[in-house]
Each structure stands twice: as C-alpha cells, then as structure tokens.
C-alpha cells in the first residue's frame, strides 16, 4: 500500500455541519474520485487509497458521513439512506465536484446509488465494494439486532473494545489489521452508535434500496467483493450487472467484508487500473 503522503485533511464548511475531509491530487479539478464509507467506518478507511489515486494524478476525496468518524450531524439531520444521500450531494456541491467516480462500501452503497440516481449526468463511474443493489436481501443478524428496540440499545451499550474486536475478527477469514480495528472502535462512540440504530431502523427493506436505479450500460463499473463477507453474500457481486451490465467483477477469494483492509494491495491495484 502506498504511503498516505500528500493528503490534505481539513473540515468542510457546510451549513450546520463541518464534515472531516481527506483529499489528495488536483483539488480544484471538477471531476473527482469520491469515496463513501459504510458502517462502522469513516473517511480514514480510505486514506491510503485517496493518497494512491492522488499520487496517480486524480483528485480523490473522502468525507466522514454525519455522526461517523469525527463529524457531528447537524440538528435535525435525517439518519436514513435518503438523508445521507442529500448530505453527500451538498458536500460535493460545496467541493465543486461536477462529475464523480464513486467508490462505495457497505452502507455507502445505497447512499451513493441514491445520489447517483438523482444526478445521472454527474456519475462518471462506480466502484462497489461489498455493496450495491441487493434484490431479495434480508438484513443480516447483526442488523436485525440493531433494528430491534431495546435489544439494539443493549447491544450497543455492551460493545466494549474487546467484544468489538472479537466480533469483527471472528467474521473475517484472515482477521483485520489491528490498527484498522482500533481506529474503527475509536470512532464508534455513543453518537455513532445511536446513528447506527437510527439508520438501520429507517431502512426496513435493504433489498429495495437501489431498486429504483435504472440500468446504466453507459457507466463503467468495478465490483470488488470479499468471498467470505459475513454480512452481504458474495453472490450479490455478480448481481450488480443487473444495473451495470458492463461491470468488471472481482470476488477476492480470501477476503471478508473489508477487502481494502485485508487485501489492500489488490484493491489498490484494481482501483488504479480502473480509475487512474
């Protein structure tokens, strides 16, 4: 993995919120590679990839979604896929991004795809990492716990650093790098835990998210999926061609839900080949 050199870290002045931004490359370019993280996650997930694409001459940026990472949601923020998609649109407008190569992971998938559906012309390409359209998908066990009143709150209250680490480690075929997990937990504070409960409770049917996205054979697409994803089955990797018929699909055979953490070199190579 490339060193995260040349990264610009700052706060983006948006009305009501000041999301944390990580950026690299020609920062005034109207076309940018835009990384959208999932849950749990933050802009930090993408630092190395933002640096790699910046180093390859592309404008690349990642922002914390409200109540994730170090970003506090503005009062009245709607913690739903639609609410986050609106936030993404406002952020890209403030950043002067006219066309975006989206790189989406986990819950960043529905958020990014909703934004793309409302901004057809602004979508240059899409990279889906363990996310995308999920026809027929039913929530995984952990999401069902989060969606259950009281049980979800209890679960979040009992998420100690050790239990968090153990849970993630057990669900990943090769484990995850310790610094990655530690940073993830550091950001998993009460504000984020409550946001997670609201987001999952606002999303009753994950299979319907992105169902409104019209097939786009004009949009280049890259799909990367960990074969042993314990949350969203890898079989969905190939279903992305329902919407992006020309998608290049890579199912990484010993990766889990975070391929950019357990196979960073492979993901970086694929992204650079696709976007740089």
């Amino acid at each position, binding site marked *: 993995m490339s060193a995260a050199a040349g990264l610009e870290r700052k706060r983006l002045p948006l009305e009501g919120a000041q999301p944390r931004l990580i950026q690299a490359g020609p920062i005034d370019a109207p076309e940018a590679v835009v990384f959208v993280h999932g849950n749990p996650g933050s802009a930090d997930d993408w630092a190395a990839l933002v640096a790699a694409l910046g180093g390859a001459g592309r404008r690349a940026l990642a922002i914390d979604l409200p109540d994730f990472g170090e970003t506090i949601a503005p009062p009245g923020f709607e913690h739903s896929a639609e609410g986050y998609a609106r936030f993404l649109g406002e952020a890209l407008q403030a950043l002067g991004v006219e066309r975006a190569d989206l790189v989406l992971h986990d819950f960043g998938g529905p958020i990014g795809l909703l934004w793309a559906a409302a901004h057809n012309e602004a979508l240059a390409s899409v990279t889906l990492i363990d996310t995308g359209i999920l026809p027929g998908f039913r929530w995984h066990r952990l999401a069902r716990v989060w969606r259950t009143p009281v049980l979800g709150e209890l679960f979040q209250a009992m998420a100690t650093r050790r239990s968090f*680490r*153990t849970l*993630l*480690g*057990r669900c*990943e*075929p*090769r*484990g*995850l*790098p*310790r*610094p990655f*997990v*530690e940073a993830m937990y550091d950001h998993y504070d009460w504000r984020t835990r409550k946001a997670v409960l609201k987001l999952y409770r606002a999303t009753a049917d994950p299979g319907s998210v992105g169902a409104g996205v019209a097939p786009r054979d004009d949009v280049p697409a890259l799909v990367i999926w960990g*074969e042993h994803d314990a949350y969203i089955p890898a*079989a969905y990797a*190939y279903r992305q061609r329902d919407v992006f018929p020309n998608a290049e*699909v*890579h*199912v*990484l*055979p*010993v990766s889990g839900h975070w391929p950019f953490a*357990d*196979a960073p070199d*492979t993901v970086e*190579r*694929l992204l650079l080949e696709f976007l740089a």
Partner: protein
Amino acid sequence: MDDSRQSDGVRADYDAVIVGASLAGCTTAIALGRGGARVALVEKRPDPAAFKRTCSHFIQASAVPALERLGLLEPMLEAGAVRTTMRAWTRWGWIEAPPGRAREGVNLRRELLDPLVREMAAATTGVDLMLGQAAHGLLREDGAICGVSIKNAQGEETALRAKLTVGADGRDSQIAELAWVRTKTWPHGRFAYGAYFEGPPPAPGGGSTIWMLDPQWAAAFPTDDGLVFYAAMPTKERLPEFKRDPERALISFLADIPDAPPILVSRKVGSVTGKIEMPNKVRAPIAPGLALVGDAALAVDPLFGVGCGWALQSSEWLAGNVVPALRGEESLADGLARYRRRHRDELRGHALQINEQATGRRQNPGERMLFAAAARDPKIAERFDAFATRSIRPGALAAVIPRAIAVNARHALGPRRRRSASPDLGQPLGE
C-alpha cells in the same frame, strides 16, 4: 515369452494387449516389454505425437523413483523437464519444507512428454504400437477376458487375443465399461481452467506453488522452455464468469489472490483450456484377465496433481506383479490379486482424502489445525510436504498431530505474552 496356451486353454497372440497409448499405457508397455512380454499397444488416435490437452502435467515426487527405474527421467530432463519442489499458500502463511528437505517432482508439458514416452514404448522390444485402432469389444472365454476387438478408420476389424488385457484408456474408460467393472463416482464441486504463460517464475526459487484459498484453489507449475502453467480450480458458482471470458477470468483469478504470482506481467502462450465436469471415479483395478491402470482405475480431482504420477506408479506395480504370470511361472489371477492389493494399499487412503475434499467444501477443523501448524513449524511442514507429494500415506500424518496441537497452542498463547509488553501489535486478528 512364448505364446503357448494359457491355463484356461485360450491361445494368445500376445501376452498383453493394452488399450490406450498415453502415459499409463505406454509405461505399462515399456515395463512389460522389458520383462520379456509380447505386447500390443492400441491407440485410437492415429497421430504418434498426440497428447492429453487438459492436464497440469505435474508429476509428484512419489513417482520420480518409478521414472528413474523405467529410464524415463533422463530423457525427460534432456527434453527440458524441470525439477521443482512444492509450496502451499494458506491463510496462516506458506507451507514449505526446509531447504534441502523438500521432495522434487518433475514438470514437462504433455505435448513433449506423451510423444517421448510413446516413442520409447514403440522402441521397446516386444511392443507393437498400433495407432488409429479403436477398441470396440472385449473377447471372452469361460468368463474371463482374453483380448480385445479393434477397428481402424476404414472399419477393418481385428481380434487381438492376449493372456492379459489392460485398460489404460483414462477417466471415462471404455474398457472398464465393456468389462462391466463397477464404477464408484464421487461428485466434484470444482471446475478447472489453465494456460501456459511466459514470464517470471511464480516462486523465488522457481518452485511449483499451490494456493489453498478455502475453498478455491489456484496453482502455478513452472515447466520446460521457461513456461509456467497457471491453473484456477474454483467452485462451480464461479463458472459463469469463466464461461463469459475464460482468459480474462483466469488472469483475474490468479492476479487477485494473496501473494499473487506475476501473471499480469506474463504473456499467454497457446490457448486457455478448461474442464468443467470432472467426477472422481474409483474402479476395482482387476477383473478376470483384465487390469486397469492410471485414470482408468482411479481418477481423482486433478487439482491435487496426482494423475500423472499415479499413472506411472500403477503401471509399474501392474507390470511387476504380472510378469511372472505372463512367463507362466504362476497363475495370472495371483499376479493380478497382488496388483490389486498394492494399488489399494498405496492409493486408497489418498483417494478417500481427495474425493472427500473434491466436493468444494470448506476446510474442516482438523485440516485447519494441521495447515496452521505446518505453516508455523518446519518439521510439520516437511511431513506435510511428504504427504502432499504422496510420498507417505495419510495415516503417517497422524504422528504429527500432538506436535501440531502444541505448535498451535504455543502460537495462541504467544501474542498474549507479547501484548502485555506492547499494547499495539498491529497484528491481524482472528486465528
């Protein structure tokens, strides 16, 4: 050997008629011919340079002594064959026997190996190579098989009578079918695609490499002329992707695996070949007057790279056990019974292990325990290497289980001790 009457009174034209002039058939013919037998070696393909196209061509270390005894190793090396050790990727690390302790197999493309062995068989005293002749029936006498009926492209039929008929006609053996030999079929959950590439070696020392990706598999075999045979053996869910664009899927698959080989900077030579249905077939290797060798007797999952080696070994075992009978020194039934026992004792355990894994299932706890320990401990790695190259039987692996448990326990306790000294290890979690 004379062609006098057999014990059952059938007059034989040959001591043995072998159907199939590929690796097993030719090897059997060479060994029988050197034992003094008169052998008819029948092959349906007319081209003396014909070769098996879908094959990893890896000859395991267990078969190298047979190659040496048959006088095949030297000609193979002169033809460019490469001696290689084997290393295996696991999620716990590489399993590699210590330097100097790893067993060496042999790699030579089948397009060179098959003609070489066939030429040697044809030059063996007592062996008549009959190309362009398809076996289409068996001759029987008093319940025993006593030869085959063959037919050429013009439809001319010839009856070849022999004391011993040998089926060396592969996984889908027609001889076994004609002889009503019971076939036990085991399901296979994978398919295979592969191609030769020109480029850097896949391992630092130029060795062969397999990736045990659980449940996917990949392999790289360096061979003659600076080529590397890259193979992907995924489970069936991935078949549509390979059918869509075999070359692209093969390269992507190999490039995306951990510690990937340098396939992206290599150049494909020749076409991508694939095999989609590869059910494992186990047959009784003998019947009255009949023996089966190579894949005709036992065809297992090709990802384990045992087919070529077992073809050579089973042929040598058969010849060694029936030559006295063909000389008239004992009954053929006794020689065949010894062959069956040898075949069973040497290969049954391996076949059971391979057939059970061929379904494409995930590794079980016992396998994970052993692989993890082998990646961590050189002594266990050496024993694993001996097993993987089929140089020892599966039962011999049991001896390392206590050590494997101790190695894994030591590993599990190790990080806790270190953690107390250093709170941030930056180590992967999980097992």
